């Protein structure tokens, strides 16, 4: 059965372009221009994944509201924020509302599709029993590449998809410095320096929530970051 992706985007051209791209990948796509129509449809039937713009027609924060309502309907549904707004504050707000990823519209369609596929893979993986071979252990850290989930000292650390991929890239070769470009490639994103810095900061903070003494991500100034066990 084809998976359904809902695109909530008020710009018709963009919505249609995304829809075309997802359709080409074999997904069923439904587009909504605003929160009202989207919620009406979601109430009838949930999609398998939602791509939401923050600013929706007359509601500048409509996407956030929609995300909250959608999370109310389903805790597992993957939600991606895709927006022209790229401020730190928006990203933090979006992820705090339970979105799985926060992407800017700079992202190419290919990258977007890679992320969507990854999210579906994660959803599928979560339904299957865990496979040991996909699991990376680095000291207190346990990474499940299939489920795209992270644990620190056995406690789950909720990472967004981008964050997960950054941690994943850093821990594949602990002690090696990964520069920003490498991290961007690993995360399938095109981000500027400030956004990478913000992601690293958020990752540290999320680990610090479960362990105050967490200090495994080191900054190598001018070069990048490395994972230190």
């Amino acid at each position, binding site marked *: 059965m084809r998976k359904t992706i809902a695109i909530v985007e008020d710009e018709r051209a963009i919505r249609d372009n995304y829809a075309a*791209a997802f359709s080409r990948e074999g997904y069923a796509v439904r587009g909504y221009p605003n929160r009202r129509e989207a919620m009406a449809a979601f109430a009838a039937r949930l999609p398998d994944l939602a791509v939401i713009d923050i600013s929706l027609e007359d509601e500048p924060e409509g996407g956030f509201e929609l995300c909250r309502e959608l999370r109310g309907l389903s805790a597992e549904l993957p939600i991606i924020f895709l927006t022209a707004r790229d401020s730190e504050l928006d990203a933090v707000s979006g992820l705090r509302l339970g979105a799985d990823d926060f992407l800017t519209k700079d992202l190419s*369609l290919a990258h977007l599709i890679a992320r969507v596929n990854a999210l579906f893979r994660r959803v599928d993986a979560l339904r299957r029993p865990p496979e040991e071979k996909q699991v990376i252990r680095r000291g207190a850290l346990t990474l499940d590449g299939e489920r795209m989930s992270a644990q620190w000292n056995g406690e789950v650390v909720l990472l967004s998809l981008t964050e997960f991929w950054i941690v994943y890239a850093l821990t594949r070769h602990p002690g090696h410095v990964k520069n920003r470009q490498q991290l961007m490639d690993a995360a399938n994103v095109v981000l500027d320096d400030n956004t990478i810095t913000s992601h690293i900061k958020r990752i540290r903070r999320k680990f610090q929530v479960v362990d105050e003494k967490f200090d495994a991500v080191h900054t190598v*100034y*001018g070069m990048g970051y490395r994972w230190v066990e």
Partner: protein
Amino acid sequence: MGRLTDLMNYGPISPFRLRTKLLLLALTTLALPWAGCQYAREMETVLRESEQQSLLAVTTTIAGSLKGRQELLFRADSLPGDTGNPGEGDITPVVLSGAPLIDGRADEWDTDARNVVRVAGPGGDSLRILAATHERWLYLALLVRDNRLVFDASELEPLVRENIGDRVWLAFDDKRGGQQRLFFGGTGVGPLRGRFIETREYGREQAVEEPRIEAVWQRTRNSDGYVMEIGVPLSMVGQHLGVLIDDRDRRGATRESYGTLDPSDLRATGRLIAASPDLGDHLRQFAQPGVELSVASATGATLTRLDAPALPGDYTRFRGFLPRMYRLFLDGDLIPRSVTEAERQRAAQDLTQRAVKGMPATTFIAGRYENSVTVAAAAPIFAADGKRIIGVVQLTQTADRWLTLRDRALTRLLNLTLFVTLFAVGAAFWFAGRMTLRISRLGQASETALSREGNLSRVLPEASAKDELGDLSRSFSSLLGRLDEYTGYLRTLAGKLAHEIRTPLTIVRSSLENLESEANSDNARIYIARAREGSERLGAILSAMGEATKVEEAIAHSERQRFDLSALVRTAVDAYRTAFQARKFACEAPGDTVEFTGAPDLIVQMLDKLIDNAVDFSAEGDTITVELRVEDGFADLSVANPGPALPAETSTRLFESLWQSRTEADKRPHFGLGLYIVRLIAEFHGGSARAENLADGSGAIFTVRLAR
């Protein structure tokens, strides 16, 4: 953003301009003392005239009281001119202020005075008659040149021919119209008595002493003659008086007579022009403090004089420095220059002459002392018929009293105006100073408010002042406010623009990506690739435009931590060596740990921008020098590169948003945001950024000062 200061700099501004102007303005109060002086002069003129008039009135009154009183003026009902002929024998005594000592010495007499009567005798002998009056006495000094003084042989028998030596005869009218004749002679020098010759019974003549008349004779010092002083009560003497010398070569010899008497009958023909002693008493009733009274005959000879009683009180004129200064420009023509005694007398005589012609007259005469002035008035005394003029009354009053009063008033006025002027000048100075201070404070505040590009502080001093400066300040504030809004608008414009363009760009890009996946001809793929390249560049431009906003956000969310700044710089430079292999890097950072509190990510980002800039402006193979110098309280991080010099006027503007001074075509998008970000980060660390040319002109150096 243009700088208002550039508009304001129309010339060098001296901080004293306003103050000087107001000071000059305040100096116009100096016209106050000037006006005061003018007023004082006017007042003085009035005062002087009234003084003259009142003195003249008194003079006229006195003259009126003497109308027809010949007997007071001349001790007789007839005038001197009425009897006999005016001639050489007239004796005009001077009026003395004190009685002379009758001692046979001529020392105290003025032997050259105009009133001296000279008579030549035989054989080179001569007689000089000097006369003076004091109160009720007539004094005569007879200066006789005689080569041989012959004394009488006997005091007891003065009338025996053989005994008679040199004799002096004094003859005068008495009040009853008779003639009095006295002779003086003696057996030696010293006091002697005048004697009448009385004819007794049988024609016997006898010499009788006149006790009321005093006389002393002495030889002159060089023995060329003798001096005889005689004191006669004025009450004895009528209108005529004369002296005769009987000179004898030896006792009993025939006399050789000469003098002002007729030798045959010893009758006095010369007039004695002197006032009655009662005139003094009469005048005394008009005496006033400070007023000198004198009466002169119609010929100008002084008949009597009443010296001025002393003025009560202290009438010393200006004392002290300031009053002296005042007098310099006050007195001017008011006070006659100090004059000689002769000039003073001539002035008095001129006045008398005018009165003699029948007109009362008044004038100012310089006083005897420096800076003293007298006012004099003269009025004619008419005879009983009211036509003839028998004499002149002259009053002289010292002006010291009212001059002193004027001086005091003036001093007070001038002191007051000087004080007011000083106060006004002081007040103006203070006001100007305060004004200048306020204006310059406002000016400075508005300048600094402007120079802090981007962050205008809208609160200016004086905003609460209720005067025009307050208005100005509020106008400035609202102007700056609008400027601030405008600057803010400009600052966020790039970000907003980037955001607005992003949506259509997304449409273009996603459309291209979709198009790419369709089956296309080779040509179409080329065009699509070009279009994608273009849209990617557009995207890069957009993110560069939004970068400043992002950095501002990043700064807002930054957390400070302690780290080793030196290690950070060294690591970063190592990274640049790898990243920019076409450049060489020199790093001069302390080997020790440099503890620093800040945001290391931001510091690195700032360094990135500086290095980017240095790389852009240097050539391949050049060495870029990164230096960290640590001082007390701050650290200087500088990046120097060889290359073109900075345009002179841009050294501060370089760090402004969207300032772009590069000219060469460059493929990478440049919005001059790099150095703006440097500034933002430096300011976040309590520091500042500046750009300079290297001293040898070989390139530029950008220095960021960070507070530790």
